[in-house]
């Protein structure tokens, strides 16, 4: 009897073990990205450099970024996606802040967190300037904790 019991127990555990492995496998494979798009650069022509005045922020809603130009002429393409939980921020021209309508995070003009709950600065996009055209690479947003001068691009 005892023999039987242990064998049964063994088989039971084996089955349960295999099933849980299967479940874990399924969950992980479902979690894997089915996205197969290749990470080519995706340059977007935002316009000519002299269209953008210093100390102003221009919305490119359909491309999900804002183009900010600072007092020293540096340009930064800032993602509209709030780093808290992904809502679209709105730029307020008066206060010069990005405000999120979901949990009221606020970001300064260069994307740094001004008011929580957001935990890091807004993402930005790589940018190059060729023949005076502002070309924004929309393929991958770049994560950052805070703002630094090195993220700016100059004409």
């Amino acid at each position: 009897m005892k023999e039987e019991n242990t064998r049964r127990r063994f088989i039971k555990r084996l089955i349960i073990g295999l099933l849980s492995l299967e479940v874990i496998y399924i969950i992980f494979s479902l979690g894997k990205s089915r996205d197969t798009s290749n990470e080519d650069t995706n340059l977007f022509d935002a316009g000519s450099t002299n269209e953008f005045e210093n100390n102003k922020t221009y919305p490119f809603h359909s491309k999900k970024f804002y183009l900010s130009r600072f007092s020293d002429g540096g340009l930064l393409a800032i993602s509209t996606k709030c780093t808290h939980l992904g809502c679209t921020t709105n730029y307020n021209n008066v206060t010069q802040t990005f405000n999120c309508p979901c949990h009221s995070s606020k970001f300064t003009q260069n994307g740094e967190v001004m008011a929580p709950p957001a935990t890091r600065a807004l993402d930005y996009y790589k940018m190059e300037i060729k023949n005076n055209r502002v070309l924004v690479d929309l393929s991958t947003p770049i994560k950052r904790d805070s703002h630094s001068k090195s993220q700016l691009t100059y004409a």
Partner: protein
Amino acid sequence: MKQKTKKNPLTSFLLHLHPKTIDSRATQFNRTFGLGGMAALLCVLLFISGLALRFLYIPSIEGIPSIEGAYNSTQLIRNENVLSSFIRNIHYWSANALIVISILHLIRVFYTVSIVKKRGENWIYGIILLFIILASSFTGYLLPMDQLAYWAITITSNLLGYFPLIGPEISRFMLGGTDAIDSNTLLQFYTWHTGMLPLLLIGFISIHFWLIRKSKGIALPINENNHKIPTNPELVYKELVTALALTLSLVLLAMLVDAPLLSEANPLESPNPAKAPWYFMGYQELLIHLHPVFALIILPTIVLLFILGLPYLRYKPINTGQWFNSVKNRKITIISAIFSITLTFSLVLINTYIISWTELLPNTRTIITSGLLSFLMFVTPVFSFLYYLKKQLETPRIELVMSLFTIIISSYFTLTLIGCLLRGEGMTLLI
């Protein structure tokens, strides 16, 4: 029932949910307020209207499932004819009522201390039911793919991404294996909402009912002398009246008030303010004040462990079935509720207008400032209150536990009210 008259098998099955005779006190309306039974009825209404909606909701365009198709189909259900919009409204209002009723039921069960021994098991199954109900509501309001749906999915999948290590995997799993909200996401939610969750609901309701009978009916105080009466018609009659009244109110509501449908999902712009449905507004309000890791992991884990542990805390003088366990306890409950409402409300104001830890300590990590420090601002007063209570009253465990439970529930209630009523454009506080 006299001799073996021909019985309808359905009737006899339903009557079998009850014992033949029942304690007369169990049928008093204010014993349970009929809340569990109402929840069961609402589930039935949801199943019927949901099945009908499955015939009407066709989330595709020319056979290809798409977000746009989902929205168009919902719009058609809403506008095409009175019957289809009525079915949708019944489904919507029943779902909302189910949430109200299950929460009231949970509160009733807790404050009548009906959560020990066999009933403790049922408390656990009840919590599981509550989660199934919330998950059903969530997956349900995503199906129309309007602005509410789109941004709720976005927020939730990003929130899940804050789980350490496996966050991104979980969030992608939720979206149906993609990084963006698309037809895969829609199908995933559809399958959960119309397949998996209803199945789980039926299973767990069956266990729930079975355990009620196993614990010999609803909880009653022992000291009164009991007197048995036939279940049919004494209880069945009251149940029928309650069921009819509830159904009638829902029918009226569904005829008069249409279930909302916002504009079509627009990935480029969030609604302003972007508010969750009322039952999640308390949580959204919490997210405003607390670092995501605390709001997603630490706080819910603590609360869940407390709620699930409630039946196992070995209370000593316990009067199962007695409202608030004792008269003194009722007073403590009221004081705790007032304390919690005041504390929560003040902290929301303080956090908004007076102290911002992130501004005071700009170089400290946010998990410390908007996480730990904000968390402590709530936890410290609560534990001081409980400590004071313990010193003051030399109270046994049940009173402290009831007090803490009251504090948690009242706090969430306050957050819900603030979120629903006091937040305007940009989610800024209106006072």
